């Protein structure tokens, strides 16, 4: 009787497994994302780096794109929908983009200069019919510096910035171009476009089930034949719970999971799964307060904190999914330079510096750090903070951790260290990126870049750093800009501007039959070369 009752569901389960097997034959790549809902699909995606990775750079293209084909060097900007770009020598504010000919949107309409201007109106011109607040919100950090734009000819666009900004190409690489024709076809309704979007990207949306899945199919007519997807279909699934993602992979319900927890990696390896890691522009630091009364105004205290942390021990604790930080950027990055202050584990020197400043383990210095329970790029914040807390205690710090939820921490970071809600907070543990010079170095170290203008949460102010940041911002030769940024990095490390702890290695777990993936040194990844073997 019991067996009879169980027979039907078990039969259905077997059918489902069989169906999964059949889908493999069609080469369906099933990806478990960390998202709880799918990003906006209309063009400019929501949900940060993961939104860009899975919806932005799959369905759409930007004028400039990231080259994500190499694992052994940092991702660089290369031509995308624009074949070339230049800035005028006279004002350094007028950018000319030569557009790629013969590019079609998924709906068959032609990509041209009018489409670019239409898209910029979509984000910037509030009285334009196609203006979309949701996309404008997502894109505002990339387009805020644009003063005007115009069509020069059908294949040329000119964009004028409000001020000289050599970082502009990095920003425009995140502005996605959606199809004006599709918007018109669907009666000018972005909600409808979300269900049936049209970009120029290598993937096309076939099905969207909010909060559950997005199914993307190969765009066989993609303008770059090298990047026509090798898989027929890619299914993006929402799985915010990390253990659920791991279970889904182990039961072969999916082929790919983002961010498996470090403690599950041995089990995944044992099951034959591939664990892919690579350095990418990520840092897990404590941004320090330089506000009145903060003990971190004393460079000895900042240096001692940096020397007190057993980063290698922390890396082992994280199952090897991170590397020790030696500064804001990783040591192999062109912006690393040659700092004099070597960030390492040296508790004796840390104790000496603390003693010099008047503190010891017996008479510790009380500091308070704001931390989150979870969040994008935050890794394993609670145990990691406890690890650091113990390390700092050993050299004379008494660390109080103020734990809050991720959005609350983000709001604290946006407010800056002088804000009333941050009174008494000496540092904030908010993971950081360095994919472009603004977010990585200029916006964090330039004294005029206090929030909301930039990311200088604690109000770090250093004349030399200010000069270098200002110089980098207007250096339009990428190589020379890199050299200035390296000097800026040297300076902020020598000043121990923050407490830098580890760089995440961005682990993901892939089924044994997933092939062709190259994990780029980037927050974004190219999923077009990925395929599955039997």
């Amino acid at each position, binding site marked *: 009787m019991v067996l009879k009752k169980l027979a039907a569901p078990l039969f259905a389960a077997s059918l*489902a497994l069989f169906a999964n097997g059949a889908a493999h034959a069609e080469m369906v790549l099933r990806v478990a994302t960390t998202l*709880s809902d799918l990003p906006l699909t209309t063009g400019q995606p929501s949900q940060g780096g993961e939104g860009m990775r899975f919806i932005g750079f799959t369905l759409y293209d930007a004028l400039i794109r990231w080259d994500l084909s190499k694992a052994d060097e940092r991702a660089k900007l290369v031509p995308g929908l624009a074949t070339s770009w230049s800035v005028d020598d006279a004002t350094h504010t007028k950018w000319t983009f030569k557009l790629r000919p013969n590019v079609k949107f998924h709906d068959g309409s032609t990509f041209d200069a009018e489409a670019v201007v239409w898209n910029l109106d979509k984000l910037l011109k509030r009285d334009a019919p196609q203006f979309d607040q949701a996309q404008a919100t997502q894109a505002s950090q990339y387009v805020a510096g644009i003063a005007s734009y115009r069509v020069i000819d059908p294949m040329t666009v000119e964009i004028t910035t409000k001020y000289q900004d050599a970082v502009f190409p990095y920003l425009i690489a995140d502005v996605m171009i959606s199809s004006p024709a599709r918007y018109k076809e669907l009666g000018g309704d*972005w*909600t409808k476009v979300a269900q049936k979007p049209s970009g120029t990207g290598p993937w096309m949306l076939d099905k969207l089930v*909010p909060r559950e899945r997005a199914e993307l199919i190969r765009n066989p007519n993609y303008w770059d034949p090298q990047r026509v997807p090798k898989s027929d279909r890619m299914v993006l699934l929402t799985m915010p*719970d990390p*253990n*659920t993602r791991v*279970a889904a992979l182990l039961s072969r319900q999916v082929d790919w999971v983002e961010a498996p927890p470090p403690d599950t990696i041995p089990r995944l390896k044992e099951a034959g799964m591939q664990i892919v890691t690579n350095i990418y522009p990520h840092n897990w630091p404590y941004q320090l307060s330089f506000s009145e009364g903060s003990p971190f105004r004393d460079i000895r205290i900042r240096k001692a904190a940096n020397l007190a942390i057993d980063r290698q021990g922390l890396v082992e604790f994280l199952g090897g999914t991170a590397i020790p930080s030696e500064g804001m950027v990783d040591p192999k990055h062109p912006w690393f330079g040659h700092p004099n202050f070597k960030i390492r584990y040296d508790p004796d020197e840390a104790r000496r510096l603390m003693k010099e400043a008047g503190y010891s383990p017996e008479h510790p210095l009380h500091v308070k750090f704001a931390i989150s329970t979870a969040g994008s790029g935050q890794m394993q914040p609670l145990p990691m903070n406890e690890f650091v807390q113990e390390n700092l205690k050993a050299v004379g710090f008494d660390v109080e951790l103020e734990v809050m939820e991720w959005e609350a921490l983000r709001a604290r970071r946006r407010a800056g260290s002088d804000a009333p809600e941050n009174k008494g907070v000496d540092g904030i543990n908010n993971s950081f990126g360095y994919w472009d010079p603004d977010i990585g170095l200029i916006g964090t170290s330039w004294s005029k870049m206090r929030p909301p*203008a930039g990311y200088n949460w604690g109000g770090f102010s250093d004349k030399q750093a200010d000069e270098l940041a200002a110089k980098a911002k207007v250096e339009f030769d990428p190589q020379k800009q890199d050299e200035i940024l390296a000097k800026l990095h040297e300076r902020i490390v020598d000043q121990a501007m923050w407490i830098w702890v580890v760089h995440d290695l961005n682990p993901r777990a892939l089924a044994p039959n997933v092939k062709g993936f190259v994990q780029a040194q980037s927050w974004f990844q190219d999923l077009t070369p990925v395929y599955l073997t039997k």
Partner: protein
Amino acid sequence: MLRYLLRRLLYTLPIAIGVSLVCFALVHLAPGDPISAVLPENASPAVIQEIRAAYGFDKPLPAQYFIWLKRVATGDLGTSIKTGRPVLWEIAPAIRNSMLLAVVAIALAFVCGCVLGGLAGYTRRPTVDRTVTALAVTGVSLPHYWLGMVLIVLFSVELRLLPATGMGGPDIAHLILPAVTLSVIPMGIIARSVRASVSEIRKQEFVQTLYAKGLSGRRVLAHVAKNVAPMVMAVMGLQFAQMLGGSILVETVFAWPGTGFLLNAAIFTRDLPILQGTILVLAMLFVFTNLVVDVLQMLVDPRVKRA
């Protein structure tokens, strides 16, 4: 009866307003900002102001609340800050998904709970009673997210019999694990309630009279069951209404896109329109389910008289 129904329906109005007010106040009292999740990393004050105005968050809180209330009165629950989709579009499929899960889970809980509770209360055998009580207490005490993970490991990872996550279509295979997980607590509650109730009713004089009249055990059981029914219905009604609200933990563990999953995402992204809309709709569903249960109780048990 009609007057009672109308009165109960009228009660829903202050409940709806109260729920929406509390929800609105709580979201605004919580640290963080309703537009924080959609703000770009380094949004300038001008951009923040623009976005705030675009979503109506630049107005005083009471004004924001009354604007929302006015829209709700016309059936418009607003638009999700995070997705840009109408809130109703988000809630409707989520409720459908949670309802599917809840119906299966409550049915499972009802059958197992009644059988176990009935058995323990009716047989009067200490071993059976103790076993059922132990099972019921275990069921109520197990953290269901933990049970969900254990079931996933066992049936999905090790045995590979059932899918670990998602709705898959939906299909029955995807439904089994989350439904079993969700049914364990109500099963324990129903089993304990049924056991106590059956045991109590069996001691009553009318049962002795039924035996004395020479009725068979089966027919006596039918009488006992009829007397237990109103209590079981009340417990089931409450449990079912709770399940419609979705279980944040179970739905997250199984990536089941129901109301719990929706609320979880909305809480973490401070999606105020989704939070307010979902909580309001769920509160109404809760009230409605209880009303249905009350009416059913009245129909089943004539002793339950309402003015």
